[in-house]
Each structure stands twice: as C-alpha cells, then as structure tokens.
C-alpha cells in the first residue's frame, strides 16, 4: 500500500495512472447524477412545506458540500506539500482552488434562487450559510489572486500553501462568527434542508447526487492536476518523450 502511494506520487506514474481512472470517475459520477436528477425531479414527492422548490437542494447541497470539501483538500495537500515537500500535492492544491471556487459560486447561485420563493428575496443576509459561502468564495479568490501574482511556481506553491493553512484555521472561526451574527437578529425563519425526517424517496436521490457530484469533482480535479503536473514537469525527460511521440491530449 505504502509502495503504491509512493509510486503514485511520482509524476509520470500519476500522469499515466490518472488517465486510466478519470473515465471511470466521470462515468460512475454521470450515471449517479443522471439517476439523481431524474429521481429528484420526477420521482421524489414534493415537500409539504416548500412544495417543488425543495428540489433545488438536489444541486445546492452537493455544490455546498463540495465547496467545503475542495477547501479541505486544498489545505491538507498544501500542508503535505509544505511539510514533506511533495510536488504532486502542491499541484493538487493548485488544481482544487478554481474548482472549489466554481462549486462555491454554484452553491451561492442555487442558494439564492432557492431563497427567492422561500424568503421573497434573492439575497438574505440573515442566513448564515449563504453568508458563509460568500466568504468562502472570497477566500478562494484571495488564494487564486496570490497564486497568480507570483511568477515562480515553487514560490507560489509555498506562499499559497501558507495562505491556505491560515485560511483553514480561520474557516471554522468564520462559520462560527457568521452563525453568531445571524442569530442576533430575528431574520425570516429558515426552513431546514433535509433533516432526519426526510422520506427515503427524497433522501436516496440526494445521496446519489452527492456521491455522483463527488465522483465528477474527482474526475475534474484529477484532470486539472494532470495539467499542473505537465506544466511543472515541462523540462523533464518523460514529458519530452510524451509530447514528441505525439500522444496528444489524453
């Protein structure tokens, strides 16, 4: 097992291995998402409180979950890269940030579209989760801005890793403070998404969507890590052989 991980961390092996598993991730993810979309939109009964508007959670919850997930992946791989100086993990951190930002954006947009029929406004500052997501998006933007401002890849990796770790310490504090802040004033009552009382016909599509989105996210992440690896290793012999034999984009 350890040997396998060690081998995987070597760039050429990762490059070849990831090419094989990306289609599987994408395939399994797509099947799950297609099932979840169909079941969520047409098979699941409508919510007694929210009517059919609750169906938005089938895209909102996976997006919100992945926006947090991407940040953890980013911070953990940044830490690994900083401590053990593994180049591949810096590539993972660099690849996770734009994807995380996209999913955060998606969570924000779907959350606000869900809020329109529920609260009557597109944006409700009283909702702690929407506000947290917005701050999350700012964190991603800061991270990517720092990365873009530093030309040297090695330096950009390390500097942005420090920022990611400082951000990771701050994320729970930010969530806590936003929760506290919104609990102070009596906003519109927030309807719980899901909860334990969710019937099975509603829950299974949601689980399928979360799992499917995770697989698709994995495929997208691996694809971006491949690009990062290729760029970082552009002077290596294996990349030259790969490019000159015309293996093409794989």
């Amino acid at each position, binding site marked *: 097992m350890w040997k396998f991980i060690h081998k995987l961390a070597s760039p050429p092996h990762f490059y070849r291995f990831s090419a094989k598993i990306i289609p599987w991730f994408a395939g399994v993810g797509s099947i799950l998402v297609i099932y979840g*979309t169909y079941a969520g*939109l*047409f098979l699941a009964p*409508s919510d007694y409180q929210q*009517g*059919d*508007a609750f*169906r*938005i959670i*089938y*895209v*909102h919850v996976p*997006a919100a979950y992945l926006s947090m997930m991407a940040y953890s992946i980013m911070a953990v791989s940044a830490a690994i890269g900083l401590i053990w100086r593994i180049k591949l993990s810096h590539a993972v951190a660099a690849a996770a940030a*734009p*994807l995380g930002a*996209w*999913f955060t*954006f*998606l969570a924000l*947009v*779907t959350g606000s*579209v*869900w809020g*329109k*029929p529920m609260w009557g406004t597109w944006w409700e500052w009283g909702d702690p989760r929407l506000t947290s997501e917005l701050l999350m998006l700012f964190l991603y933007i800061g991270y990517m801005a720092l990365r873009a401002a530093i030309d040297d890849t090695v330096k950009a990796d390390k500097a942005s890793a420090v920022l990611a770790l400082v951000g990771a310490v701050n994320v729970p504090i930010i969530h806590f403070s936003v929760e506290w802040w919104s609990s102070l004033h009596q906003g519109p009552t927030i309807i719980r998404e899901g909860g334990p009382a969710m019937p099975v016909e509603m829950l299974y599509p949601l689980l399928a969507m979360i799992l499917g989105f995770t697989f*698709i996210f994995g495929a*997208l992440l691996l*694809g*971006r890590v*491949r*690009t990062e690896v*290729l*760029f970082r290793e*552009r002077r290596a012999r294996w*990349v*030259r052989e790969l*490019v*000159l034999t015309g293996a*093409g*984009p794989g």
Partner: protein
Amino acid sequence: MNGMFAMGGYGAYVWSCFGITLIVLVICVVQGRVRHNRTLKDISARLRAMETKS
C-alpha cells in the same frame, strides 16, 4: 406532462438551478480541456524551438 415541468409554480426556479449547474459543470470540463491542450502545445512549441536552435 405540463404539470411535471411546471413544478407547482416553482418551475422557473428549479429548472434554472439545474440549468446553471449543467452550465458550470460544462465550463469546468471545457476549461480543464482547453488548459491541458494549451499546456501541451506550449511545451511542444518550446521543445521544437530548442531543437532547431541546437
């Protein structure tokens, strides 16, 4: 059939959410592809320039 897509009056909200999700996913896929191909092209251009020089 019509009722199914109307979503009890919430159709516009529900469908726009699923639509924007699809758009974001497509953007992610296309962006990844474009970057990968551009990186490959840059590397091969650099290698070719080096070979003609040497």
